[in-house]
């Protein structure tokens, strides 16, 4: 109880309560919200806060967030993933950390837990952390200011913070966008997803968080060849944003999600989707990586391994 009171009071209003004021933190928070932190100082703190959004639901935001966070941690970076979908948490189950939850983001914001208490350290990769969403509250429990405050604390220790944005353009979206340095937009090659992505791009630019970077998820190369699916060129022509990655439709992603082991964490079996996630993380670090040729099927050994894996289960 004493611990929670001492360090956990991060909510704006609660900073004014006696005995819980930490003068240094309060000043920094005020500066962040007022936007008066000079750009030079921001560049020194090399942490990048990245929001994964889409507008439309079910396109793969959570899967992408889980895999990008895992791939980034595997390359040695200190990463924290935050599930911003309050009331409908699933980043934890996709990452296989659902049994480790004690506190969540709302507990941090309302002062019942310190940041370190709520952050789950992944035992498979110690530099990977997760702050889960609350399951029994809704998106009004957290405000954009709260998210900025939490991310501000994380910037001091992490190299990357990934925010899994909920679907839609309301509170949850606003919360996830508020602290971000870079926005990744996940889109499926089909009409409703592209339409919603366009709306999101417009909103992000209006909020001065743009330009977003595009991830096309669930590409089916054979359908694109036949002309029965929107191609990468079509989507880029319509949305006019830069592409940062393309992920093919892959049954293995469902399998790995079932096991709670993001596919990016599995050993390199030649799976194109696993490679795609790792390439995106390299691009996020500034490396210029050529895009995979999705037409190329994984080699015979990789397919044999996948077949053996399927038979074994």
């Amino acid at each position, binding site marked *: 109880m004493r611990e929670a009171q001492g360090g956990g009071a991060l909510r704006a209003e609660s900073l004014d309560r006696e005995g819980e004021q930490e003068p240094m933190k309060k000043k920094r928070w005020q500066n962040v919200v007022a936007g008066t932190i000079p750009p030079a100082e921001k560049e020194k703190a090399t942490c990048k806060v990245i929001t994964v959004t889409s507008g439309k639901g079910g396109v793969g935001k959570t899967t992408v967030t889980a895999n990008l966070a895992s791939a980034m941690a595997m390359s040695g970076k200190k990463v924290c993933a935050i599930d911003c979908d309050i009331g409908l948490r699933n980043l934890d189950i996709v990452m296989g950390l659902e049994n480790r939850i004690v506190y969540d983001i709302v507990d941090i914001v309302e002062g019942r837990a310190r940041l370190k208490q709520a952050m789950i350290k992944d035992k498979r990769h110690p530099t990977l952390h997760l702050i889960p969403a609350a399951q029994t509250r809704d998106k009004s429990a957290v405000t954009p200011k709260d998210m900025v405050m939490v991310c501000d604390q994380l910037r001091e220790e992490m190299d990357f913070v990934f925010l899994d944005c909920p679907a839609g353009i309301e509170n949850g979206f606003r919360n996830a966008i508020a602290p971000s340095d870079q926005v990744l937009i996940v889109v499926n090659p*089909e*009409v409703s997803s*592209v*339409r919603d992505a*366009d*709306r999101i791009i*417009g909103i992000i630019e209006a909020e001065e968080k743009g330009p977003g970077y595009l991830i096309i998820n669930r590409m089916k190369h054979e*359908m*694109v060849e*036949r*002309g*029965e*699916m*929107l*191609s990468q060129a*079509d989507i880029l*022509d*319509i949305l*006019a944003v830069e592409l940062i990655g393309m992920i093919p439709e892959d049954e293995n992603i469902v399998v790995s999600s079932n096991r709670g082991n993001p596919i990016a964490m599995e050993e390199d079996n030649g799976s194109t989707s696993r490679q795609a996630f790792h390439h995106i993380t390299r691009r996020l670090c500034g490396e210029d990586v050529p895009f995979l040729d999705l037409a190329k099927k994984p080699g015979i050994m990789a397919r044999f391994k996948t077949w053996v894996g399927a038979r074994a289960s």
Partner: protein
Amino acid sequence: MAWLQSILRSRPASGSVAKSRLQMVLTHDRGDLPPALLDEIRDEIIEVVTKRLSLDKNKVIVHLAHTTKETRLVAEIPLQSATTRRRRRA
């Protein structure tokens, strides 16, 4: 066999249909001016221009032109010049 079917089939493949439908619908979505407003603007433009120049009211078109970076209000106003009138009379 799918490629053969797509040749024999008279309608275009759905990918290109999807692209053109999206372009149409996004032009609409991006421009959030109601069509009635455009008609009012058109009438007012005609009113202002006819004070100085003569024009064919039926041929005046006012519409929105979208690019990825901006939206423009475009008015096309064919003018009736003195030469045109003389040619017609002749």
